[in-house]
């Protein structure tokens, strides 16, 4: 967005704001459901990811940037998260013994 550019309407951002407010409320509903832990975690994490995407695309205005920047941010963030996820195997190795060392 260039300097002194007339911004577009607020309606879209209000909807995003209301959706982001609804997400923690839905997470509380899930928290008090009588379901098993992994399903609870999956439901809450899915909602959190939706909220994060809304925040990144609209509140951080990434949706209005060039596709190259969107790709850059997405690739590097996913790479960072994948790198950390790589540590899980070692964590479980520590937890349950050493299945990969044999």
């Amino acid at each position, binding site marked *: 967005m260039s300097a002194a*550019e007339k911004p577009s309407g607020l309606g879209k951002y209000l909807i995003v704001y209301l959706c982001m407010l609804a997400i*923690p*409320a839905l*997470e509380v509903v899930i*928290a*008090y459901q009588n379901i098993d832990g992994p399903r609870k975690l999956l439901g809450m994490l899915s909602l959190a990811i939706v*909220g994060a995407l809304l*925040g990144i695309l609209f*509140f951080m205005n990434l949706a209005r940037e060039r596709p*190259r920047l969107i790709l850059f941010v997405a690739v590097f963030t996913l790479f960072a998260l994948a790198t950390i996820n790589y540590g899980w195997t070692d964590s479980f190795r520590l937890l349950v013994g050493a299945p990969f060392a044999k």
Partner: protein
Amino acid sequence: MSQADLAVGGHTPAMEPSPFAIPAKKLAMWLFIISDVMTFAACLTAYGFLRNATPDWPRPFHSSTVISVMVMAFILISSSFTMLLGVRAAKADDRPAAFRWTLITIAAGIIFVLLHIRDWAGMVGEGVTLFKNPWGTSLFGAAYFSVTGLELLHVIAGLIALIIVGLGYQRGRYSSDDIENCSLFWQFINIVWMFVVPLVYLLNVAN
């Protein structure tokens, strides 16, 4: 100095164009945020591992804490919206409005910090410290205070940045781009909170 200014007289520009058509400071902020994603992801992953590896992980959060956390989420998400309005006003060269929205964001952030400290005080009152707690799982306190403390530290850092840049913008020292860069960081803090709430609090509500 713009690219056009550098290209006068038929010469090619002396500087490479920005790779993503955004100012260098904004690109630096995006890079910082990506690196901060790694910090939080590592912290939350370690927390998840500890929780998964500990069969008797405590579930100490009662409905009063959940209500408090929801209020904090409401305040932080609302502050993200007011920050967005501040950026829009700054981009439209409406300095008073931009400053006003930034002040509202700062006020919301201060309320969030106070509620967070109150939440911590409640936990300490229940006997939770870094290495001790009434439920016997010694790492619970360390994990809880680390994850929420990192978030609190970011909120405080964001508040300091907003105060400095907001006041500087009002005095004409900083531009709308600087407000936008601060806003990026503030929005990121809000996004992190969306993960902290379910993982740290809601998965550990008392039955």
